[in-house]
């Protein structure tokens, strides 16, 4: 391997979220020093992930099947949907484990400045999903920042004409993307004291 190839590997790793140049170097060296113990298994796992992991066509969660196992589970309440920004928020809620409904991954928040519009998010899919499945409650668990608030409001507005309860988590709790940093009590309290916004 020439220096150029090592460099480009370091470069690729440093593009991953949370990695700087320094940590990318450390990881590269570690992988190269431990080819059979670390590098080969990693290559295999990455390949499997690439081949098998797909987005759920209904809720945009990731899984090896679509619809995903959450959407297909008969242990879940199929009349409630919790809307989150990102899959990591779904993971947080699943780890805590008190929420038993379905999910909808939005993929971000509306921001005209950053060029993220209605069609860049799964908003219309959500509306159709609510319509087609007689959903009874939609819980909006998006960020409390301006973009998150705007997005919540816009979704609620679009659901207004449908026969569905729309609620937001209790105020003052940072949610959406920030979920992972909260303790379980805070999140479940916010969930329990959610407010109807229509």
């Amino acid at each position, binding site marked *: 391997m020439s220096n150029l190839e090592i460099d480009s590997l370091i470069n690729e790793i440093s593009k991953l979220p949370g990695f700087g140049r320094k940590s990318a170097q450390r990881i590269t060296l570690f992988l190269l020093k431990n080819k059979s113990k670390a590098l080969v298994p990693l290559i295999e796992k990455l390949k499997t992930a690439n081949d098998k992991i797909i987005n759920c066509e209904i809720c945009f969660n990731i899984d090896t099947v679509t619809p995903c196992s959450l959407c297909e589970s008969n242990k879940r309440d199929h009349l409630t949907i919790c809307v989150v920004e990102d899959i990591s928020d779904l993971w947080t809620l699943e780890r805590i484990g008190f929420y038993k409904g379905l999910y909808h991954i939005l993929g971000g928040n509306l*921001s005209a*400045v950053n060029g993220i519009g209605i069609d860049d998010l799964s908003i219309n899919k959500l509306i159709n999903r609510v319509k087609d499945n007689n959903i009874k409650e939609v819980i909006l668990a998006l960020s409390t920042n301006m973009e998150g608030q705007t997005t919540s409001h816009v979704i609620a507005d679009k659901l207004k004409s449908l026969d569905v309860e729309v609620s937001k988590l209790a105020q003052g709790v940072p949610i959406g993307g920030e979920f992972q940093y909260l303790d379980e009590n805070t999140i479940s309290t916010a969930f329990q004291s959610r407010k109807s916004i229509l």
Partner: protein
Amino acid sequence: MRFFENIKLENFRNFNNYYLSFNQKCNVFYGLNGSGKTNILEAISLFEKGRGIRKDRYENMINKNQNSNFFKVISTFVSANNKIDLELKSELKDNRYKKIIKVNKSISIENYNYFENLFSLIWFLPEMERIFLQSPSVRRNFLDRLVYNTDKSYVKLLRKYNNRIIERKNLLYKEKPDAEWINKIEFDIVDLGILIYKKREEYINSLNNELKNLNLTKENFFKIKLNIKDSFINKIDNKDNLEDMYFKQLSHNRNEDMISGGCKIGPHRSDILGRDLIKNFSLDLFSTGQQKTFILQIILAHCNILIKSFNLQPIVFFDEVCSHLDDKNRAILLELIETLNVQIFLTGTDNNSFSFLSTNANYCCIE
């Protein structure tokens, strides 16, 4: 009494390693042009949020003659019997310079909030003499700064409002903006815009009140009164359904705003005008020196408000204040320095021009 007790500059602007101690009342920096007087004021001003009196970039504040990549400003702030240690440092992160402020050796936000709410910086810069001749945005910024002095959260309100205005502009560029989305943005603009209008009006009212009561009867002072000129809000007599009308007007203006790329109505279009009630003249018709008096009167009234209504310690900078100093202007400065409990910093090229001050001012020759 609260005040900055001293300052130490490391690699800041033209200073390499520089220490000055201050008097709690009146400090005079004199020295040749370019000696660094304004730089010292700038360094103190960095202890507030924002980029200081010049609004310059932090990298420009690092001493270019030294081989260093950061600057540091260290100071002690005295509040009653408490001494607060301040340390401010530039830091390069992700290719951008930021400033880090430690209050009592800690970067915790609680410590900073506590410190920030002890004082308010007010500054007079030479260009402010011409404020009534300049564009409305200059006067608007001047007013916003005064409001900010009374309420530090005001800057957040302005930021949110501007963010919504930009968001609306971007949405209007889209071929067919989503109806619910643009409605929500305009609702936000109405809410935030009304808050800004209110804050400014409240402040202007208390300022006018204070200007009326200024204890400056000895000289023939001006009786100035400020008012807000705004093509939208001034036309509305009945403020009961202000929200509705604001919202309707915004929706109505969409097409026009799309073409102009702006937003025709709102507090970002307001202007601040003033009159002298004795001559009944608009303030911009007075001479340069007289216009300086207006600003000094406003600053004096403002300091009174901060002390009386907000329990905030004003700390006032007068950069190059000595031009156009007639008896009136001197009287205001003396009132500020001698009657009010305010820490003041004055700069000028010649220490003789400060001879009107009492002798207990702290004279610092900057060289």
